[in-house]
């Protein structure tokens, strides 16, 4: 079999500043066709700016981005990439169907409006005014608009912000059903569970750069679990690393830092089998992982 030779996204050394704020400080990313990639990071990490550059909405200060080998604007004109952006972008006085008719008319070729209404799960509200639709319905309308050109790549920028649990679930079900047909999807989120549940690959972004990039399970492992710190004068890092629940060990003098999925068992082991003292257990969260990765410059 032949793999498609042209990546869906190929970004090299992208940077972007707004005044003194360095929003993106160097992003290199290649996404192959068919991948489902989560762009995970806290607010202000530079996710939206990076996405805007991929869509040609913001020109990069330096670096280059290609979508299916084309400049973003050329890819959009051919309907190869479409996007669901965070909020806005709808005319409240149009009906759902009119919005889709209008959008469809702007492309050279599109799927039938009835089909995208069905796939986005909004066929029953086609005649409703956009201004009267709920946030979740409006987001599914944006999704339907994005499906019209049958794009090879779909980009979603924090698509479920402000939705209730039910809305989020319905929205992701529609996306997942669509992605199973082979579309490349890149979505930005700051929810780990969304990234974990829907992506094959997670790209962690923090302070304008990619700090980790790997398969979902690998990245999730980095983020979940607990950190156990202890002072162990005659520590044997290799022995500790071999313990079943320990993923990572780092040593700074007498102070040892362990990343574990079972902090209770590890603490018991340290207290009973080693000379450990001053044991400190902290839970991991995205924020602490981001900070750790950013300060250490680690790449998974």
């Amino acid at each position, binding site marked *: 079999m032949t793999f498609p030779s042209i990546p869906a996204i190929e970004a090299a050394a992208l940077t972007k500043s707004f005044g003194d704020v360095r929003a993106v400080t160097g992003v290199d990313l290649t996404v192959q066709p068919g991948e489902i990639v989560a762009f995970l990071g806290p607010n202000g990490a530079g996710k939206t700016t990076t996405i805007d550059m991929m869509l040609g909405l913001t020109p990069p200060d330096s670096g280059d981005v290609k979508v299916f080998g084309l400049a973003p604007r050329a890819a959009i004109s051919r*309907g190869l990439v479409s996007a669901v952006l965070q909020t806005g972008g709808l*005319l409240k006085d149009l009906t759902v169907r009119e919005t889709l008719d*209008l959008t469809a008319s702007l492309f*050279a*070729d599109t799927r039938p409006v009835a089909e995208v209404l069905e796939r986005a799960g909004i066929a029953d509200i086609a005649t409703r005014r956009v201004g009267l639709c709920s946030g979740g319905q409006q987001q599914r309308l944006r999704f339907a608009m994005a499906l019209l050109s*049958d794009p090879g790549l779909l980009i979603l920028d924090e698509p479920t912000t402000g939705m209730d649990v039910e809305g989020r679930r319905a929205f992701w079900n529609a996306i997942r059903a669509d992605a199973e*047909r*082979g579309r490349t999807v890149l979505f930005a989120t700051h929810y780990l569970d969304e990234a974990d549940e829907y992506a094959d690959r997670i790209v962690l972004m923090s302070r304008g750069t990619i700090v980790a990039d790997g398969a979902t399970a690998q990245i999730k492992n980095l983020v979940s679990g607990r950190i156990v710190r202890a002072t162990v004068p005659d520590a044997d890092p290799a022995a500790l690393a071999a313990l079943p629940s320990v993923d990572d060990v780092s040593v700074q003098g007498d102070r040892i830092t362990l990343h574990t999925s079972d902090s209770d068992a590890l603490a018991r082991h340290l207290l009973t089998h080693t000379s450990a003292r001053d044991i400190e257990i902290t839970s991991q969260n995205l924020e602490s992982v981001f900070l750790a990765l950013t300060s250490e410059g680690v790449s998974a």
Partner: protein
Amino acid sequence: MTTDVTPTDTNTEQAARVSIGRVQLDRKVPPFGGFTLTYLRIELARKLRNRRTLIFTLLFPVVMFLIIGYPMRDLSLTDTPVAAGGTSVAAFIMVSMAMYGAMMSATQTGASVAVERAQGWSRQLRLTPLNPLVNVIIKMIAGMVLGLVAVVSTYLVGAISGIQLSAAQWISTGLVGWLLASAVFTTLGLMVGYLVPGENAAQVTSLAIVLLAFIGGLFYPVSSMPDFMQTIAAFTPVYGISELARAPLTGDGFDLAALANALVWFAVFLVGTVVFFRRDTKRV
């Protein structure tokens, strides 16, 4: 579907996904920068659905004509009495009001650009093949169509209420008024629309139009103003186009100063529009 689903490696779900995404890359770009009659039709439907637009653009000129113009149907504009075939003051007011309708419609075009920018619609359109300039052209055409409806409906009411003009006068005043009002006030509206963010643009332009219409002699003859006001009036944007549109009524021919006024203001607003449009599309 253009993404071909032919999994060849079924060891894992992920491997299957990676291998199936084959995208047809030789896609077409739409002609004319995305200009379509569908978009134009929806733009017109939006205008006709907007009650405020209908009141200020279509109803206001007709009602103002009936209130102010109609009672003066027997008062002659020139030395020839109306009964002897002279043009009435009512005809003068009819032309002025029709122009006001066309001006309002034209200005709304610009204001709508500002509102759509604030709503993020212009950003959404950047995710389609639509050229931003084509977007503006579609809005201009829709605005001109509505302006034409305003002119025609005012003229219809004028004709029904007994205004007598020659065919040449009906056509020349209507056409000149419609085209000039559209040109000058679409560009004014767009300039303000790109300059002032959001909903404020509509308020700024509506207020500006009323003031400019007054001082330019659309509601109140410039010749009845104090001398210094007359001097000021001759330099305002409504003055030139309204003098030109009403020139066929008096048979005096038009004033070159009025033509210069119209051209200069059109040029000023056009340059302003281009400058602010460029600045605007840069930040999206």
